[in-house]
């Protein structure tokens, strides 16, 4: 069964509704999602061809228990081994996979778990991505923080003890241009040791500018690596252009960023193929840019404002755990982030196996850190959230919980050089 994504808001004009319905029902009314729009930089790269070639030929039903056992025994996990570990045949071996994943995590990261928090500075969006709370047809409270408001939010977060921040925006160049984001990065470098970005994909020179403003890590979720499926979910806007998004991490590295993060949004499409493509995206890019730091996230679909029925379909916690263990075994050196989309109990368990980074004190809304962190009623306007979070633990609680699990919370392991 598929998710029911299409929701009509009563606040939309007749004209807007008509356009929305046309986009939803008539594929010919949508722009070609494989065609670059004016201003989008096109780089020479063979990474996409390699990743998608592997994904298209991946038939996970052909792997057997024998392949999985062999993969678990091999010292080096090959692409073929990884494919076996992601297959349904590996599901009965989840405990063995977790044991192996834990060993690999220990070798590369010891018992450390890094902590960060996201800060949404604007939720304006020009895209119609049917599963996202920020989509331009969803009736929510929109907001863009001023520099004073951003600084206020940052102070509150920094006072909680957090040292790493991830700045996010909705995908609207018109409302949140690169300069606006750059100024936010400059402010962030005053309050935090590490500044990451999760914004709309930009060109190499813009990544270079943002790096100079203090950002050093770029996260871009491809959502799904299946371009045909992507086309049916991202109906309007710049985000619709699939290949420009695919090359974002490479442009970020070319622009001088230290590290990049990747992910598919699990539940949108065939999660096994998306997990394969996500990891191979990392694998091939690491071979091309061996100095770069890489990390993987593993978000699942969540309910949004005005549509509480959205769910990750066949990606249950067991499948998610399988994907994360397979990531760890195949790419022992990469960071793995598990966000507050997952429950506290899942996150407590997965940091002991493979995850190396968790968010805490999370809000996916705009300008609401004061009310969330201090309980103080805010007299200013707040913007609505991108999706519902599951784990709402504060920084202190998360820090304590990680320590209680016998792990070591790390707030910073980074220098901007």
């Amino acid at each position, binding site marked *: 069964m598929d998710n029911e994504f299409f929701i009509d808001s009563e606040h939309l004009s007749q004209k807007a509704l008509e356009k929305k319905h046309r986009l939803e029902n008539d594929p010919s009314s949508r722009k070609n999602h494989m065609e670059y729009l004016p201003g989008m930089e096109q780089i020479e790269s063979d990474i996409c061809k390699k990743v998608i070639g592997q994904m298209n030929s991946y038939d996970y039903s052909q792997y057997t228990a024998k392949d999985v056992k062999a993969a678990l025994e091999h010292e080096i996990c090959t692409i073929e081994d990884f494919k076996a570990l992601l297959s349904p045949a590996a599901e009965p071996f989840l405990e063995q996979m977790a044991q192996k994943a834990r060993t690999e995590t220990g*070798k590369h990261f010891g018992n450390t778990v890094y902590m960060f928090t996201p800060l949404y500075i604007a939720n304006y969006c020009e895209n119609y991505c049917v599963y996202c709370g920020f989509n331009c047809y969803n009736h929510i409270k929109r907001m863009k923080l001023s520099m004073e408001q951003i600084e206020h939010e940052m102070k509150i977060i920094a006072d909680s003890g957090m040292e790493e921040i991830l700045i996010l925006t909705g995908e609207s160049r018109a409302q949140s241009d690169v300069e606006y984001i750059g100024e936010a990065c400059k402010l962030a470098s005053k309050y935090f040791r590490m500044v990451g970005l999760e914004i709309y994909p930009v060109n190499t020179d813009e990544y270079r500018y943002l790096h100079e403003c203090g950002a050093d890590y770029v996260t871009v979720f491809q959502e799904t690596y299946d371009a045909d499926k992507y086309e049916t979910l991202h109906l309007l806007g710049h985000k619709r252009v699939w290949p420009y998004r695919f090359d974002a991490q490479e442009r970020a590295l070319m622009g001088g960023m230290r590290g990049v993060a990747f992910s598919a949004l699990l539940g949108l499409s065939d999660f096994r193929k998306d997990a394969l493509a996500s990891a191979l995206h990392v694998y091939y890019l690491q071979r091309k840019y061996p100095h770069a730091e890489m990390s993987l996230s593993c978000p699942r679909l969540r309910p949004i404002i005005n549509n509480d029925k959205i769910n990750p379909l066949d990606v249950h916690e067991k499948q998610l755990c399988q994907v994360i263990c397979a990531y760890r075994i195949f790419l022992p050196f990469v960071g793995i982030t598990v966000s507050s989309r997952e429950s506290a109990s899942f996150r407590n368990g997965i940091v002991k196996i493979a995850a190396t980074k968790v968010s805490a004190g999370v809000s996916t809304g705009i300008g609401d850190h004061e009310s969330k962190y201090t309980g103080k009623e805010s007299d200013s306007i707040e913007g609505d959230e991108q999706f519902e979070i599951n784990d709402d633990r504060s920084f202190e609680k998360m820090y304590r919980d990680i320590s209680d699990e016998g792990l070591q919370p790390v*707030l910073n392991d980074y220098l901007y050089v």
Partner: protein
Amino acid sequence: MDDKLIIGGHEFNSRFILGSGKYSLELIESAVKDAGAEIITLAVRRANTKDQENILDYIPKNVTLLPNTSGARNAQEAVRIARLARELGCGNFVKVEIMRDSKYLLPDNTETIKATEILANDGFVVMPYMYPDLNAARDMVNAGAASIMPLASPIGSNKGLATREFIQILIDEIDLPIIVDAGIGRPSQACEAMEMGAAAIMANTALATAGNLPLMASAFRAAIEAGRKAYLAKPGRVLSRGAAASDPLTGFLRD
């Protein structure tokens, strides 16, 4: 027996150095108390933190801090990190660590030579972490290094002396302390390296991941001391292959 480890004019009794990979208060305490460490490595990027987390506070005052430049991708970045370490009050020792590879974390010898020269001229006691290559090691000596730190195998791998033959060449040819760094997983491997003539051993993961940390720390201490004694004692007749001829081959010589 007066057998000190001398690095950049500083004397140490212990030949165990704690690496920086995986930190905990328990590990540091055990490294000092049970393994006898007098030098502890510190990743500057981890020390670059607010008060509540500062691992500098974990480290006893009587040990020598060895800040490393991990996170540096070239000589210029390593120099900046080393200078920041000095500003943070970490002293003059620095372990130069430059990696352009996020997968195996293998050091870049060429950039390391450049950084060694700049930092040595700047008054640092420079201990370069390197891939065991004789030519690179000689260049580091000429650049002003105070010791040479070849890797035994990739960081965190616990694979032991994978580069044994090349480390032996460095021990034989370089007139500075050779400190074996990275990959030592067991006390027996540490002992073997010391017996070969290594001046000291650096380890972290092997202790950090041990079931009984204090016991493993004391095992390393004993192993390093045993290896050192064996080296100083000069091993006698140990045949690694073949057999000794009972009749001398040169018995035919007359005068």
